[in-house]
């Protein structure tokens, strides 16, 4: 019966969502209770996301543990101690600041009114009023049950602000002293007071000194119990604020860095104001750099094919002054195959900006099966058979390079339509088949680079 409540650790399958930021390994999301998809307090959902196993398994384990009583205690303990939040969002937000985009993220414009809390508070206060009324006159034979109920309700109301602490931070109120939390505390205090007085003064309405003393102690204890989460919350908010300040400092560094680079470029532009081409090139390069800083979360270098492609396109743009539209779908960690593909794509792109006409576009698609690159321009096109055999460009450095790696290259061209080079490289199964033999052509490619 007593199955271990802590689910066994397992490799995270949650991170392998098909498209987008797929294959790059991610740290496991922090332990938070998500608001979406919760059944009771979101404990199981949070644990499942953190450990990376299906929610159903966790719930089952929790229910089994709950039958023996241990699970219930554990659940309530976690409910109280684990803060609310979306683990996946938090994981994304916890990227190092220098890799994060600078522009403010769009916020939800919805203001939430705590309808549920206010309703619950009102009902509980009404119940308290009824109890007080009962003491004064009318008889409602409820005995112990009702006062205890009121007491517990008061405690629950006060403790529930632990949840709200996180939400309070999102409403960006320093310290989180929202009217809601004050109401919670006041209401909880009132309820507990009423409950305790009713309990203590239950047997004799004319209480003697001893009873009064007991009542006072009880009230104090209740108040302390109610105030405990308040202090807990303050401590946590303080920690959060410290972390926020550290991040702010980091951000200031980044801003300074940005200013430097932009100012440099502006000075360069002013210096070469007569040279329109040069100005356009500088402006374009700076625009690209700024855009990257501001609006995208950057990848750690060497882990993202998408980032490599963007960098490559940037180099070509800078060298030739022709804008290239890049669209990337999916991403993967670069390997030998993709770097051969990239070099071929670079040659195709160079051909497009040299011989073709804008707009030039590059499309990269990473699927489970293969990596594909399309390079398109709007020039007059050409016929591959017309290209003299001694010309190395297309045949060797694009088609040959990809084919040697087991890929495929197709050049489609037509006058008035332009040229499209389609490169495809099957994705290697991750097993280490890339021995030293497989590396040999790499050398060859490197030599070619210098002679081409």
């Amino acid at each position: 019966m007593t199955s271990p409540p802590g689910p066994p650790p397992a490799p995270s399958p949650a991170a392998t969502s098909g498209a987008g930021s797929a294959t790059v390994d991610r740290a496991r999301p922090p332990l938070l209770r998500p608001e979406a998809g919760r059944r009771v307090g979101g404990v199981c959902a949070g644990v499942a996301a953190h450990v990376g196993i299906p929610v159903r398994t966790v719930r089952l384990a929790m229910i089994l543990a709950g039958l023996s009583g241990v699970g219930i205690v554990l659940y309530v303990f976690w409910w109280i101690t684990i803060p609310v939040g979306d683990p996946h969002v938090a994981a994304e937000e916890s990227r190092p600041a220098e890799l994060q985009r600078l522009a403010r993220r769009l916020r939800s414009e919805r203001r939430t009114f705590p309808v549920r809390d206010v309703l619950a508070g009102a009902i509980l206060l009404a119940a308290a009023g009824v109890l007080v009324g009962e003491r004064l006159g009318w008889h409602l034979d409820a005995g112990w049950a009702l006062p205890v109920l009121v007491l517990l309700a008061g405690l629950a109301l006060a403790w529930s602000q632990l949840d709200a602490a996180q939400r309070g931070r999102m409403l960006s109120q320093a310290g989180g002293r929202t009217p809601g939390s004050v109401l919670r505390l006041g209401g909880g205090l009132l309820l507990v007071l009423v409950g305790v007085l009713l309990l203590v003064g239950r047997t004799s309405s004319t209480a003697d000194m001893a009873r009064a003393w007991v009542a006072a102690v009880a009230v104090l204890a209740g108040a302390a119990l109610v105030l405990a989460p308040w202090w807990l919350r303050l401590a946590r908010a303080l920690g959060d604020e410290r972390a926020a300040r550290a991040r702010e400092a980091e951000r200031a560094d980044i801003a300074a860095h940005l200013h430097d680079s932009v100012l440099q470029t502006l000075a360069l532009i002013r210096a070469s104001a007569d040279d329109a081409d040069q100005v356009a090139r500088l402006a374009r390069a700076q625009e690209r750099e700024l855009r990257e800083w501001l609006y995208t979360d950057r990848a750690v270098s060497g882990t993202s094919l998408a980032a490599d492609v963007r960098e490559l396109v940037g180099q070509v743009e800078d060298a030739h002054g022709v804008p290239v539209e890049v669209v990337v779908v999916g991403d993967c960690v670069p390997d030998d195959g993709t770097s051969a593909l990239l070099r071929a794509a670079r040659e195709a792109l160079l051909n497009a900006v040299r011989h073709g006409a804008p707009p030039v576009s590059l499309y990269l698609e990473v699927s489970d099966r293969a990596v594909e690159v399309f390079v398109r321009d709007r020039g007059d096109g050409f016929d591959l058979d017309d290209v003299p055999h001694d010309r190395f460009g297309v045949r060797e450095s694009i088609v040959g390079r990809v084919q040697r790696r087991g890929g495929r290259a197709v050049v489609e061209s037509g006058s008035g339509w332009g040229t499209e080079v389609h490169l495809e490289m099957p994705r290697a199964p991750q097993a280490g088949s890339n021995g030293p033999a497989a590396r040999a052509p790499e050398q060859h490619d490197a030599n070619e680079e210098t002679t081409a």
Partner: protein
Amino acid sequence: MTTTDTPTTEPVDVLIVDDHLMFRAGVRASLDERVRVVGEAADVDAAVEAAHALRPAVVLLDVHLPGGLGGGGAEVARRCADLAPGTRFLALSVSDAAEDVVAVIRAGARGYVTKAITGPELSGAAQRVAAGDAVFSPRLAGFVLDAFGTGMGDVAIADDELDRLSAREQEVMRLIARGYTYREVASKLFISVKTVETHVSAVLRKLQLSSRHELTRWAAARRIL
């Protein structure tokens, strides 16, 4: 992006919403005779007010805007939802971030173009949005493919499936992402331009209504759902 050669009947009324005066002036100067600029606005509240007062056919909407509750262009589109279908929104952004663009599209914008677009192209896009079509840049097509997936298992079987693209829609999106104009897509797939537009509109609808995991995650990051 092509400029469709639809016979010009009457210029399209356009409201420009952007917080940079320089940019608004630049857009105003670059637009051709197919559009008529009826007003400008610089923040969320002013934009909502101007849209209700002027009832333009198209609002050129910047994604990042000050004011309101911090929701930017998406907030404007949502607060102007009552003006549909008389007023349509075309997102115009310097940001290439998927989450920003998808937020505005999900709030009701009929298309998305980058600020690098030329004047004639922008005029054409505004005209097309006014006519009820969707305007997809290669970049937006890329986002769609990213969000809906490109694998074999990601193809919708039934037409009314919201969470997956049909094989044809995926094909159209892929060609647009590769830099093809609608007309080139049409000739490549041996279908009419009208059919391409139908597919694109269907994709836009899915983008707005789908509850697909990746989309909801983007939205959840901004607490919009």
